């Protein structure tokens, strides 16, 4: 950072100028590539469905309408799926972050007898796992299949997050804990009153990781709960729409063509327009949140990466 500031002040050769210009152009290009698909989808989602089939929509809707959204919000199945998505994100994140922080606290205590054992037991699972089928059978044995809790319990603690939080707590000055112990604080008090409040930056980081994971997850719905529509989530509903339109390969799907042939009435949706609206709906919450947590997760990631 400092270096850049220093360099800016100095004389610049022609070579430097060319390098900088090319670099800036490349970075702008990168931004376009990153943003365009999303902006295009946004435009399609606000465009009249049958009109979208004609193509030629880039960054701005041609025939503006909010009907695609009205349709999505009007379907009780999708609304319900949205509620399940929110529930699993809120409950899953809350529980997971709390439990992760608690275990991280115990293995950050150098004097804890089981410290090594617990740490190794967790870290080993990063490299060893039973795989899909044994896990599936276990879930069946535990009767978790077909319940909401299968979204929460199997992924309760992530090892990477655990290590990130542990490293953070180990970085806190030990004297704070010592003086609290002298004042008679037990482990619970130390955890709730000292470790948790001081951990807020790293808690924010892993909350983001877990929340994004929970919100974006579709595979467990597909694997365990595909026969239970009342437990479906937004991502899974979107995935089903995507698979249907992939089945017939061109962009102009049969359903699209049918809808456009039917035609003139304004209140028509096509798989493409529904997909666009749903893509925006599931992405907007995340896109609105992550920039504000940027400095935390950058720190958290490097902390976990360096010490993990």
């Amino acid at each position, binding site marked *: 950072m400092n270096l850049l500031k220093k360099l800016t002040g100095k004389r610049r050769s022609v070579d430097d100028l060319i390098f900088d210009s090319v670099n800036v152009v490349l970075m702008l290009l990168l931004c376009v590539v*990153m943003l365009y698909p999303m902006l295009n989808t946004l435009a399609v989602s606000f465009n009249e469905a049958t009109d979208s089939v004609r*193509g030629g929509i880039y960054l701005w809707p041609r025939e503006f309408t909010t009907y695609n959204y009205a349709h999505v919000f009007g379907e009780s199945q999708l609304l319900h799926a949205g509620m399940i998505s929110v529930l699993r994100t809120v409950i899953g994140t809350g529980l997971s972050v709390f439990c992760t922080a608690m275990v991280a606290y115990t293995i950050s205590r150098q004097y804890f007898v089981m410290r090594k054992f617990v740490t190794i037991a967790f870290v080993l699972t990063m490299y*060893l*796992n039973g795989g*899909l089928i*044994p*896990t599936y*059978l276990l879930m069946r044995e535990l009767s978790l299949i077909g319940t909401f809790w299968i979204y929460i319990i199997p992924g309760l603690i992530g090892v990477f997050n655990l290590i990130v939080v542990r490293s953070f707590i180990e970085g806190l000055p030990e004297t704070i804990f010592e003086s609290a112990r002298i004042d008679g604080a037990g482990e619970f008090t130390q955890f709730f009153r000292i470790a948790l409040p001081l951990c807020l930056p790293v808690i924010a980081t892993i909350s983001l990781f877990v929340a994004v994971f929970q919100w974006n997850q579709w595979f467990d719905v597909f694997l365990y709960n595909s026969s239970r529509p009342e437990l479906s989530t937004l991502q899974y509903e979107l995935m089903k729409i995507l698979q249907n339109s992939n089945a017939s*390969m061109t*962009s102009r799907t049969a359903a699209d063509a049918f809808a456009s042939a039917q035609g003139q009435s304004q209140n028509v949706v096509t798989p493409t327009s529904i997909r666009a609206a749903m893509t925006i709906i599931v992405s907007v919450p995340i896109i609105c949140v992550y920039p504000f947590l940027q400095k935390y997760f950058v720190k958290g990631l490097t902390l976990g990466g360096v010490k993990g």
Partner: protein
Amino acid sequence: MSIQQTPTPIEPKQLTPKQKPTGFMLFVQKCKEQKVLLLMSLPFLIWLFIFRYVPLYGWTMAFQDFRPARPILEQDWAGWKHFEFLFTDPRFFEVLRNTLAMSFINLVLGFVTAITLAILLNELRNLTFKRVVQTISYMPHFLSWVVAAGLVSYTLSLENGIINIILTNLGIVKEPILWLGIGEYFWGIIGASDVWKNVGWNSIIYLAAITMIDTEQYEAAEIDGASRFQRIWYITIPGMKTVIVILLIMNLGYILESGFEAQYLLMNPMNMDYAENLDIFVLRYGISMGNFSLATAAGIFKTVVSFIFLFSANSIAKRLGEARLF
């Protein structure tokens, strides 16, 4: 009165059990003292055992003719039959080829693009611009693969896809290409999608490594008349070497982990011969066809090979005197 050098009583709390081999009683005593800490971690150790270690027992299925209706202890043993079937099945080798190819492409592309992006970002002079580019580049990482796959398939679609529009307008191709319908393109599409989704995210760690480099080196190089490229080549890249090696080792451990979601979501009957990887193979045989034993055998193969790769990469790094994982 002589002052005897009596050993000062050390608080038992500050010792780890290793240092005092006097054994079990001490351990029990400490457990009693630290019952609160135990209370805070033991429930999760039990959770870990059930959800992460019990499935390992399921590996026995690979050596049985597993029938789901029977209890797990009353299955018929089948020896290496399922592994033999796997290694004589031509489809399995196709799947293996796809897995390795996509993994390798993702690995190389992922490393090169993330390192390049980190270097270019570091060379930006305007800090606000740098921050904006970074924020935008992280965005796709937070989108789900469902969304990303939808965007990819729309971008590549025949009539409305921007890639085909650009290519036909520039006259590079005469007819729009059905990208996802041609198997040979699939690996490249997965590689490109993966880069699109993760390049910004992966560059974070390299950027952090660059900021650790001593700025005096750059100043000295500048006084000596080193050009920008020379500075990047002789200072920035060597400065990232440790991080690059560590990440390379970690990623080699995941060489059979070519990703699942992207392939599964972008797969269709036309590109399936190139899209099916080990994970999809396991899913198809295990869940869809109910052949649990064969699917588990394939899963074991994957874990074991990953382990071998991880340890070999680690020991090679050790021999070369590089940083290593363990």
